[in-house]
């Protein structure tokens, strides 16, 4: 991607949902109006600065105090321009915030933790973390829940952000338009690793989404062979189980559900590629990679760390 490209994984000027299309149209309208006004002001300013610059011997200018009709004009002019902005603004506000939820809408409960995301699909019995998967062409209702501090759920290509406020039931409703993958990130400052609270967003075609759901509902994979088998034993016997769920093995709820951890592409809430090397470093000392991470460092031998990583990556 070239440096001047307007597309990027977080671009706000590329739409991937119905809401984003509405917002982008408004964004464009207002931007061009502002550019036009700005250009006009600069042109007048430039002209005035050149034309009325002091010339030797010029007399004092007329000491005029103002012209009311001009001032009325530039009170009314902007008022009309603002009306042009305000009307579609109000329309889009109500269109995007008062959507009826159709019966087939997919509900996703988004929980923002310091500093990771949990996505659960109550109707599908799926719980995952840091990778949001949704189907294209179906309305999705995001229910935003904050268990600790305020976060903000922002997937730019979906068309906006909404704060995740503990104690308040915020929602965001939209319809992803077509398959694709991009990023989202926490947009409300939430403490030490606010910068490391990203997410990956995948929009699947409906059939592929259903396949993904089936895979996620499946029980955790039984590891085959070494060192994954050792890794599982290590996992089950260590502090890991206190915080993490691997269905059938543990039921911790403080950290992300790891039942299908191996299917995720990133590690640490969008921070790092989910590779064996990164995972080894992560299980040994997560706070060294992610400041403030709640998972404490563990004293593991090379062998133990590799076994644990192998087990986790096997959880496809």
């Amino acid at each position, binding site marked *: 991607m070239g440096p001047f490209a307007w597309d990027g994984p977080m*671009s706000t000027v590329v739409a991937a949902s119905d809401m984003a299309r509405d917002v982008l149209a408004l964004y464009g309208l207002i931007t061009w109006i502002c550019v036009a006004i700005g250009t006009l002001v600069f042109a007048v300013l430039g002209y005035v600065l050149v034309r009325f610059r002091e010339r030797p011997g010029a007399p004092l200018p007329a*000491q*005029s105090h103002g012209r009311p009709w001009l001032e009325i004009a530039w009170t009314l002019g902007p008022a009309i321009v603002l009306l042009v902005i305000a009307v579609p*603004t109000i329309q889009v506000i109500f269109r995007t915030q008062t959507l009826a939820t159709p019966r087939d809408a997919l509900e996703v409960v988004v929980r923002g933790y310091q500093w990771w995301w949990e996505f659960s699909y109550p109707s599908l019995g799926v719980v995952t973390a840091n990778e949001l998967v949704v189907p294209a062409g179906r309305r999705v209702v995001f229910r935003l829940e904050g268990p600790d501090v305020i976060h903000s759920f922002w997937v730019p290509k979906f068309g906006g952000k909404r704060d995740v406020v503990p*104690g308040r039931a915020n929602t965001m409703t939209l319809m992803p338009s077509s398959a694709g993958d991009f990023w989202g990130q926490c947009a409300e400052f939430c403490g030490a690793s606010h910068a490391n609270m990203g997410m990956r967003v995948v929009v699947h075609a409906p059939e592929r989404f259903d396949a993904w759901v089936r895979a996620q509902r499946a029980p955790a994979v039984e590891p085959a062979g070494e060192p994954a088998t050792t890794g599982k034993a290590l996992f089950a016997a260590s502090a890991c189980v206190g915080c993490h769920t691997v269905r059938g093995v543990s039921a911790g709820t403080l950290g992300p559900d790891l039942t299908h951890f191996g299917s995720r592409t990133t590690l640490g809430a969008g921070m790092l590629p989910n590779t064996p090397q990164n995972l080894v470093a992560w299980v040994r000392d997560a706070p060294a990679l992610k400041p403030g991470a709640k998972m404490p460092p563990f004293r593991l031998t090379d062998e133990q760390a590799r076994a644990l990583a192998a087990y986790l990556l096997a959880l496809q």
Partner: protein
Amino acid sequence: MATRIDTHPHPVAAHAEATGLVAWLTTVDHKRIGILYGVTAFVFLLVGGLEALLIRLQLALPHQRIVGAEFYNALFTMHGTTMIFLAVMPLNAMFFNYMIPLMIGARDVAFPRLNAFSYWVYLSGGIFINLSFLVGTPPDGGWFGYANLTTRPFSPGPSIDFWVIGLQVLGVSSVVASVNFAVTIMNMRAPGMTLMRMPLFVWMSLIVQFLVVLAFPIITVGLIFLMMDRFFGTHFFDVAAGADLHLWQHVFWAFGHPEVYILILPAFGIVSEVIPTFARKPLFGAPVMIYSGILIAFLGFGVWSHHMFASGMGPVADAAFSIATMLIAIPTGIKIFNWLATLWGGRIHVTTAFRFAAGILGVFTIGGLSGVMHASPPVDLQQTDSYFVVAHMHYVLIGGTLFGIFAGLYYWWPKMTGRLLDERLGRINFWTMFLGFNVAFFPQHFLGALGMPRRIYTYPADAGWTLWNFVSTAGAFVLGLGVALFLVNAALTMRRGARAAGDPWDGRTLEWRTSSPPPVHDFDQIPPVYSRDTFWREKYGDRHGRKPVPRPPMPEPHGIHLPAPSFWPIVAAVGILAAAVGALTHLALVVAGAAVTVVAIFAFALEHHGNPAHAHQVGELAVDHRKLAMWTFLGSECFFFGTLIATYLAYKGRNVVGPHPHEILNLPLTTLSTFDLLMSSLLMVLALAAAQRGDRTQTRLWLAGTVLFGVIFLGFQAWEFTEFVHEGLTLRTNLFGSTFFTLTGFHGGHVAIGVTWLTTLLILDLRGRLTVADALKVEVAGLYWHFVDIVWIAIFTLVYLIP
């Protein structure tokens, strides 16, 4: 101009010109205090700038490790806090201090010692917050300090304590200073300087004083809530106890948005002085410029929730706050257009001051337009908390405010120092800052469009943000160089610069009518005022060239009275600093600091008691300064109690556990205590009437009665609180306990202060030191007393009577 000082100057006049450390520590001269503000604030500007450069260095490239996450968070927190409260506001205060008395033809501010007090408290607050760096725990919750992240469970260390206490200290400084300047502007104008003849800078300053007076109590209450949550276990921001986290956001932004205008309006005022001076034309449509400033400030109180479009307020609130926000664009646009119209047809003499002012017309316009973009909530949902907003607000606060301050510096420097800054270096100074600023911040619009969030210490290499971040960092360093060039210019010209005449720019307003720098008494004679731009009128006549008939100098039968220097302002401020440090270390220090402050306040208040030179302070509005100050302060108190009461009401019924209000409130008893407090107001009226007639026996009797009734009320309250504690309701029990005790406790505190004040007057009376000339002191105390009683009526109705 004749230079004749009254042949019998007041004896204290000799003190004010003294030099040396003690003279500066005890100065009450508005010009010296202005310089103290300026120097201190510029140092903090450099500190905040250094923090900014570290931020930009860290972000120059992805995955940098120049600073860690926690320190980065502290950097942007302290950058914002420092720039707003320690650099820009006090730089504006420098101009208020130095220029306002000169521009309205006064010899000082209304309360010179309070003015010194404001400065020393500001310095104390600035030192206190920055002490946090020395102990390794700088505040790291953002300048907006969103609760609950800033509550004890999520920010356990002392970092937020420094912030929450430091800001309260600074708030004291700001409100005291603003009451002072509001009274100065309203009451100390030279004869003939009607409100509509006031220079635009003075007008914008007046508006700012009211904004500070009315907006700061709101944040003060928010900070009190946060402090009480952190120190005393209340539940204002405890979601589990039923708290609503929107509370902090509403309280913060109800202050925070007016704060934006507190920062920018003085710059608008400076531009409105600089442009006419160098275009050599009157300001186009000056009355409309004044009204639009008032309108901006007024609307500015009704738009705070546009900072919360993402927080989930619902479509109706979003729409309402969106429209209100867009409306602000109209008066702001008028200002830009009127400035352009002022230039139109002028004869523009380009100086550095002018360049900065004209620069604002360009770059502030960009900031204003991007503001219109955020006013549309759907668009804002893509821009808020992204770099687009960072760009927007720096276009407003650097492109508007800071450039305005630099325009003011280059414009008024000769007046303040008697030396001209070097214009050649000034031109380089301007262009370096202008280029650096635009290169640093314009690309941040692109970063915002590309979805880069704010307040992140690192970012991935594949997000497409690298190039613009690098460019932005380069620009920031050029901007920093530009600021450094100003220091070079100041240093070079301080000793060797050309001497400035009294009127180096052929100015239009009164400050140019005295020498540069002005004498300690500002004007040998109070200047005559013939019109707006009165000095120009005096020099060139009206538009037909008719000069006004010179007025004879104002008779000054008492000679020039200059206020005497005083140690008490700095002693009181040191006491406050000690108490603040004590809050983080040892309770004994809090007590000691508070004791020092109380002693200093009494000494301060009684220093000139009985001094005939202080008896008569009636000004332009035919009201005594002190009375006007009390009215202004009571406006501030309205917002203080308004916020407390609104919080009580907002949290009513959100209790998770009992006891609930109806189970515990004792209506008959409180009706009795309410009646008692109302009766005390009646006695207060009788006391004042007696004091005004000079009936000392009756004054004594009724003052004693008022004090007694006040004490009885406090007794009722103490009894009520004790009962509640016995029935299991404390600050920590539930939301009701937190809000109830905080609201009624602060009211009780006000009653206690009133009782102390009236007791002091009573003692003075008993010792024969309260004469009929002091009736005004009784009146001012009475105003406060009645106000506190009225507040109680509101509390009694809303808390006790309405179930």
